[in-house]
């Protein structure tokens, strides 16, 4: 299987004054294209930290991450921001939708960011700058929310919000979607529906997912499950 992301001897420490707290102690992991990978582990073991580093929201203390053989740990802040916009989608435990914007606008947001950026780019690549809402609408329809386009987050149920968040993660056709406890904040029945959506997208669009969870039902749906134990991947 083709490797999308290669994580090579990743270390991450946090400092509290002079005290070093080692969270990741040499993580090695390959993530394949089009798979759903579940990362499981006890709480506080560093699952989210690993996900944030993969998602370029944080930098490792040591080690490298390669996206299709490109080492993103060498990227500048600006390059990382751009990379995050283009190549990574996020789904969080708490949906983190922007309360002032409708479902449609929330989904379209990162595409609007990209279109705005590219409108001033001089590299010759231009995106149709008006396609954001079109894309967002298609995605919201595909997660079953075609009736909820103009609703604000506070007018949506927990499951609906999480589905909007999934649609938002997909709008720029990212290489990978990173989900941090996507079902952690919703009831069982709704969780199933959200997982159905994830699986459906994975199958239809060959979308790669990395899901951090301690929900065993979720790992059942994954193609592969790895466990993070004591800062390392346990096989």
């Amino acid at each position, binding site marked *: 299987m083709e490797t999308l992301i290669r994580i090579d001897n990743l270390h991450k420490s946090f400092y509290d004054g002079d005290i070093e707290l080692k969270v990741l102690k040499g993580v090695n992991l390959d993530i394949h294209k089009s798979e759903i990978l579940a990362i499981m582990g006890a709480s506080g073991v560093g699952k989210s930290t690993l996900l944030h580093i993969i998602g370029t929201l944080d930098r490792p203390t040591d080690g490298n991450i390669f996206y299709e053989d490109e080492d993103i740990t060498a990227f500048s802040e*600006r390059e990382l*921001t*751009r990379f*995050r916009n*283009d190549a990574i989608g996020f789904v969080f435990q708490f949906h983190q939708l922007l309360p002032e*914007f409708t479902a449609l606008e929330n989904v379209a*947001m990162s595409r*609007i*960011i990209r279109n705005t950026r590219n409108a001033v780019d001089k590299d010759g690549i231009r995106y149709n700058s008006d396609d954001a809402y079109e894309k967002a609408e298609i995605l919201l329809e595909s997660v079953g929310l075609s009736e909820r386009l103009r609703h604000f987050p506070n007018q949506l149920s927990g499951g609906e919000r999480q589905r909007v968040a999934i649609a938002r993660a997909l709008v720029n056709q990212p290489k990978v979607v990173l989900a941090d406890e996507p079902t952690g904040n919703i009831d069982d029945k709704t969780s199933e529906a959200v997982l159905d959506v994830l699986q459906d997208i994975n199958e239809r669009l060959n979308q790669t997912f990395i899901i951090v969870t301690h929900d065993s039902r979720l790992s059942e749906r994954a193609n592969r499950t790895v466990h993070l134990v004591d800062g390392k991947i346990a096989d």
Partner: protein
Amino acid sequence: MKFEWFVASRYLLSRRKQSFISIISIISIAGVGLGVATVILVIAVLDGVEHGLKERFLANEAHIVLRLIDNGFYGDYQNKIEAIEDVEGVVAASPVVYSQLAVFREGSEQIEDVILIKGIEPEIEDKVTGFTKFVKGSYNFQNDDLIEQARLLNNETITGGIVLGSRLAQRLTVNEGDVLRLVVNMTEDKFSPGAFIPVIKNFVVIGFYESELTVYDDHITYIDLKAAQKIYNEVGRVNTIFVRLEDAELAPKMSEEIEEAAQFSVLEMPTTRTWMEKYAPLFAALELEKIATVIIEALIILVAAFNIASTLIMTVMEKTRDVGMLRTLGSSRGNIVRIFMIQGSVIGMLGTIAGTALGLGICWLLSSNVARPSPWFALGAVAILILFQIVIVLRRIMPHSKLRRGGLFVFWLLVVCFGLYCFVVPISLKELGLSAIYQMNQLPIKVNWFFVGFINLLSFAICWLATIYPAWQASNLKPIEALQYE
């Protein structure tokens, strides 16, 4: 910028709490607006006073005075005046014998006062200082009935008529037809060498000069030019030339041109004084007052800008998680900076525009003498409108919608305008008993458009600067920490 405008405008018009514009934005806009309106209004009043005083002074003041020092007299003044009148921008020039003389009342041996005497030709002087407009009574210095009467009654040598400043006349307690005795010279007493006796000329009071400007009414008297020349034994000569210009503001520049045109000889070189030099202390004081006011007013705008800064800092705190999410979605630090700077700048701009409109509106109301509805009618109307609004709110007559919010906004804007229209009326200085001090009947307003533009730019610049720190603070948030912010 499309993305930044999109986010910033939504934060400004935050719909989350179902208000037309988030209340905090309104407060910030009002802060800036009131600051700008106050500045415009106060400066318009100060400018109005300065302009009004200038107009009053210039109405009976020569713009340039060419005066020979050391009691010298010009010989061929007619030629000089003709040459001066040929200079472009000069309206007219008049010959004057200008001097100070002691004055006795008839029948008194006591010197009453020392007064300024202007020997003039009324018709020519009129063109320069508008002389005749301010005279109550006659200014026919040679052939007035009063002169004839006095000559008959007193059997004295009456030189001619005299026009007295009205306040001076009150002080001297003289009326029309009374005789004033001017000490024009001193001669040595033939009988007691070393002692001097005054040479006295008699003039009949034929009119009063009333310009309502204390400076003049208190001190000045007019006599005929020829009479004045005779007093000094300088027939056909004058010691002063008064000049009026088309544009008084050009006086300093024109004075040189005029000196050149008149071709004064070395011995006749006059001291030239413009009206500006004469009133320099007054206008300097006014100018200082204006500068002080601008500084104070700029501080008001600064306070309003702090308001914007604190609004933005609060918004940044409230939106920390949003900022974290936007950064996660791939917006750059620059994007975040611009979002908050746009938000603050829009507040600053709306405040500035609203303040300018309010300030100019009040200026117009303060200077417009159009009849207004009576205050009771206005109060009644506003009360009915407030009742109307309460009924709408309580009975839920109109459904909540953008249209309703917009409609109510416009409605209340009109109510406020109506209220201002009814209650903001020109301020009468006469009623306040200040007309004598300010020499004006109504509080004068003069809008300086250049200054309005300047204040707009200044206000906007200060507001813009106030956005920098909060915007920078927002852009410095680390995405993960921001996302986890509670």
